[in-house]
């Protein structure tokens, strides 16, 4: 006969023994359901055509059709090109500016916490609001940028309306959005540099420039690489700002990968083709990740 107290103890014992399992289980289960299962579904979707009739979906197995759609998608190659250009240019700019800021502010004596505090603002603002804000600022007639250009005597520019500038505008907004993030990571790394090593370099005879290039930067390389790879892969996710700013236009001049996926899925309603694209995108991102890790491994042990 077990008393209520003994039963309680028994339950507690059981919970303790299985803690390691049920601690991890909810996360694993939820994650598997919400990410693993959909990915498996993606593969199924990629070889099917999905239509909605009378509010119900019907699946037809059509392995070749989505391929044809892909090959026939005239927007695909500009989108891929745009995305690569975007990632390359935006991330490079963000890294350079972020690094410069981290080094410059790291060398300051006061004002560092003020800098850090203000830098987190762009990270916290909803990307949609950022897109919305800059859409107004890029406005051809009354926008901030054209106002400034007007003050120095340059004719108003169609930032969002001209094919040649649309992508650039998107890049600029992305740089504004993410430089603070890079700054925060690199600034933390700069602050974490061993002070005595830098002093040793000073005593050993290094000029400011030599200290920077031969000690500080080499010591920052691990953090820089992490920030770079992280940001670069994340850059492929960009959606909110582009959606707001240009919607991909004019034409496809500023359409990025995520936006294209959106259009295929929800404007063209091509769920099967969209799934195929998704599969390729995921594979591409994972491949990028594997390559990045392989490269950094090689670098670290050279």
């Amino acid at each position, binding site marked *: 006969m077990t008393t209520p107290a003994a039963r309680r103890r028994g339950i507690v014992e059981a919970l303790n023994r299985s803690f390691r399992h049920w601690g991890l289980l909810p996360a694993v289960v939820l994650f598997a359901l919400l990410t693993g299962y959909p990915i498996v579904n993606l593969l199924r979707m990629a070889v099917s055509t999905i239509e909605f009739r009378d509010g119900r979906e019907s699946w037809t197995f059509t392995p070749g059709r989505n391929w044809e759609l892909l090959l026939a998608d005239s927007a695909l190659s500009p989108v891929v090109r745009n995305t690569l250009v975007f990632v390359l240019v935006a991330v490079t700019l963000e890294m350079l500016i972020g690094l410069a800021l981290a080094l410059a502010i790291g060398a300051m004596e006061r004002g560092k916490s003020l800098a850090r505090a203000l830098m987190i603002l762009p990270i916290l603002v909803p990307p949609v609001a950022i897109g919305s804000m800059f859409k107004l600022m890029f406005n051809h007639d009354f926008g901030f940028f054209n106002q400034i250009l007007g003050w120095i005597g340059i004719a108003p520019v169609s930032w969002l309306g001209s094919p040649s500038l649309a992508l650039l505008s998107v890049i600029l907004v992305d740089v504004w959005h993410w430089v603070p993030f890079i700054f925060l990571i690199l600034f933390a790394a700069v602050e974490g540099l061993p002070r005595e090593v830098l*002093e040793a370099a*000073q*005593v050993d*005879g290094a000029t400011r420039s030599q200290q920077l290039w031969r000690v500080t930067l080499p010591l920052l390389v691990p953090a820089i690489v992490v920030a770079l790879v992280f940001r670069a892969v994340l850059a492929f996710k960009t959606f909110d700002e582009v959606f707001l700013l240009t919607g991909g236009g004019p034409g496809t001049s500023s359409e990025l990968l995520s936006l294209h996926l959106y259009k295929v899925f929800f404007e063209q309603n091509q769920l099967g083709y969209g799934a195929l694209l998704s599969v390729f995108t995921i594979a591409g991102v994972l491949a990028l990740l594997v390559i990045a890790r392989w490269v950094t491994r090689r670098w670290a042990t050279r």
Partner: protein
Amino acid sequence: MAAVSISRVEKSFGQTSVMKGIDLEVADGEFVVLVGASGCGKSTLLRMIAGLEAISGGEIAIGGQRVNEMEPRERDVAMVFQSYALYPHLDVRGNLGFSLSLRRTAPPAIEAKCRQTAEVLDLSQLLDRFPRQLSGGQRQRVAMGRAIVRQPKVFLFDEPLSNLDAKLRIAMRTEIRSLHQRLGATSIYVTHDQVEAMTMADRMVVMNDGRIEQVGAPLEVYDRPDTLHVARFIGAPSINVIEGRAAGPAGGPVPVARLITNSGIELELPAWRGLRSGRALSAACRPEHLQLHPGGPLRGPVSVVERLGHETYVYVDTPDGRLCALADRNIDLRPGRPVSLAPVQDAMLLFDTETGRRLEAEINR
């Protein structure tokens, strides 16, 4: 090689003055140790010499040249840091040759110098290793090698042995000392360990609270400490201090000054004359000058017996505090056993309790 001259140096952080009136002359080729407790200012002074801290007042000159306004790299000094501060991204060879490569010395010359220095410090096998792959003692030697390669005017050491274990510390002490003898380099060495100071210094500089208390050769400072602080700081186990007041000479054939301790015990002070009665005094006596002597004036039960192998120290709880006496190595004493101690008269030191300064004995023996 050069002499270092420190005159009327002051240091303040903001409004707070932490150091004032520091004067010190380090001769060319001398090994000077700055020793003191944490916070006494020794590291700050060293860093001012290196140029890593600004000099708030006074002047520091190296080789006769004023360096107050010079950047560290212009002063031609080398520093060995407490944490070694090796360049993590360079191997040992790279660390040793870093300063030379900064001056754009030709690679073959750098290589030759590195090899040479590595030989001296027994690092030749480790030239291709990185700091993270080295032990504490090896890193320490690389840090020294880095300094030696530069052949600077002055070597500065900032507590380089603090992070090593006891045995290694003792081994490195002698290594640094023999290196100094070989290179004859002007060296300023900072430590909080008075044993290091005693064993390594040509001259010791005992610092306290931003001031220099005493400068002198180790034995001189040991035998004739200028202040009570120095007497207490130098020497292990610590010197025994008994507080009391001077008393007029007792009646008798030879009038001899006496010390009445705070617990009422009378100690004779034959070496001093003319002490004002009632003056607060601290009598200090090193353990080796306090002997177990039946009938001695200081009595109490044995508290702890420490046998170190070559020596044995006996701690006795007397009414005037716990006193430490050096005893015969094989002595058989148990805690609790009552004993009496007597100080060796010649070796007793007297300090004015208020000023902390030592009183000179009137009779020279």
